[in-house]
């Protein structure tokens, strides 16, 4: 409980203003980038910008930068577990021989469908 003293770090409004302006600029950037054809990198750029924005919010708006190590550890653990869920599931799909998921023609299956029930 010794980390208690600095948890009351007060961030000045000027910092918040700088952050919100950066966030707005980044929003503009991400929209702009979406209109440029970057092939498969469109999604990479979009996610990268979103991650930068999210990081800014976490660090400053949510004061993670000034929080005890334990809070940072919790945040990292959350990200890590999310990566496990996404990564390990996708590892199945992308290493399948037929990973594109060859599927029945829709018409075949829909004929069999009974009505939706509660």
């Amino acid at each position, binding site marked *: 409980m010794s980390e208690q003293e600095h948890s009351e770090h007060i961030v000045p409004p000027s910092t918040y203003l700088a952050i919100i302006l950066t966030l707005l600029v980044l929003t503009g950037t991400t929209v702009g980038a979406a209109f440029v054809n970057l092939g498969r990198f469109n999604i990479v750029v979009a996610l990268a910008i979103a991650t930068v924005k999210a990081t800014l919010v976490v660090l400053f708006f949510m004061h993670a930068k000034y929080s005890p190590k334990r809070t940072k550890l919790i945040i990292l653990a959350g990200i890590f577990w999310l990566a496990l869920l996404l990564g390990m599931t996708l590892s*199945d799909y992308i*290493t399948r021989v037929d990973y594109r998921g060859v599927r029945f023609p829709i018409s075949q299956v*829909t004929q069999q469908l009974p009505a939706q*029930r509660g």
Partner: protein
Amino acid sequence: MSATAAAPVKTLPEHHYLNATYGIRSWLLTVDHKRIALLYLVSVTFFFFIGGFFAMLIRLHLLTPSGYLLSADTYNRMFTMHGVAMIFFFLIPSIPAVLGNFFIPLMIGAKDLAFPKINLLSWYVYVVGAAFTLYSMVSGGLDTGWTFYTPLSTIYSNSAVAPAVVGVFITGFSSILTGLNFLVTIHTMRAPGMTWFRLPMFVWAHYATSIVMILGTPVIAITLALAGMERLFGLGFFNPAMGGDPILFQHLFWFYSHPAVYIMILPAMGVISELIPTFARKQLFGYHFVAAASLAIAVIGFLVWTHHMFLTGQSTYAALAFSFLTFLVAIPSAVKTFNWVATLYGGSISFDTPMLYAFGFLGLFLIGGLTGLFLGCLGTDIHIHDTYFVVAHFHYIMVGGAIMGYLGGLHFWWPKMTGRMYPEWLARIAALILFVGFNLTFFPQFLLGYLGMPRRYHVYPPEFQVYNVMSTAGASILAIGYLLPMIYLTWAAFFGKVAGDNPWPATGLEWKTQSPPLTENFEVTPIVTWEPYDFHNRPDLGLDAVASNGVAPAHGDD
């Protein structure tokens, strides 16, 4: 601290949490973790007997190959509701929400959990979820299997899937809130001197369990939400007719539901780690390793989920990786088992009922754990996946392991919870009946499984009948074994002999306060100066200070 009460005729303390206030309101609006634990005790017992009733019908029905008393649809509803009631409404909340809720604050020397109101809220959330599920049971039942596999559950089943899914979804939040409360409590509410490595193993086990609850349960919540919306509003993620993938449901489902097995077994391991040192009057062998094993199980347990899906056509590479990780998660369980047995060495062992449950747990968990190897192994899983072998395996873990631990813990702490002792000899006989009945019920199912009887069959070829009859016979014995404790524990709560503060005696902080405890747990916040399970430097326990069994003291470097 009134631990040295040695009055010739014991009486209950004048003030305690049970008589602090009276009336229905004082129970339904309580924020006392001990009272909430009792609320949970009543609710989970209710669901245990509902689930048990369904189980009994299932076993009776399977006496003859052509089925004895139920139609196919009824049978399917029985085993589904047995699973749902037992897993989501009994096993998952049982030890954490009853024993954990009651004893974690006591064990760490806190006045309550960190968030008492959230604790009460979690019980209400559980009750609301339970109400939806009960509604589904009486309004047409549920026949999808507790696994809710799509597209059977989302499109084809004509039973009451929607209320059941909503019920389980809601109950998930109860589990999340409990886990959150435990984690925060263990982090911030420890008494002075209660360092991390002075925590009882029960607390460590719940710390690991809470991690699983926190990180896994939200995933089942969203999965069931998606499946529910698919059934009600036509979302399509799991619907092959729209191009969705039913296997994705299984990925999401098992991401929680495999670790959920550890939600059930880790707390039981925690109970056993309390019982064995207490009744062997000896330090837990390899404290640090047992604690680390709990965390290892919680973490690695998240990396093994597709071993339920080896035969869905998943990638061969993924199957190899997940099988490998499955074998890794077996190791910490083995480490724990060896440490428990090593704790017995050089002890002063008594055979009080809780210890009998601990021995029972050891044997059954051993079989349950080792048969898991056959299922985690890719080669043998091809044959025994989805057969009765699986059924037997997880009943050894969940019934043989988790429920043995739960009952052992209930007997151990009953004097603390109620201030009164249960009838010792009756309890020993009940424990023996349970052990015999359990093995007779579930061991034949291993053989059935290897012979190739698939699970969830309401009729079966005649060659499987012998083992089914044995199993049903065992189930009848088992039923008696479960009814007995329920009856005599209830009786003992009101009429049992007064137990005193520390009847065993045990070393934990919960035994340093009166039985039953005060609403504030301790009159004065205790200061911890001793190591866990240390019988040698505890004159307050009234025991001989030196070991008298001829084993030389050895200070290992654990």
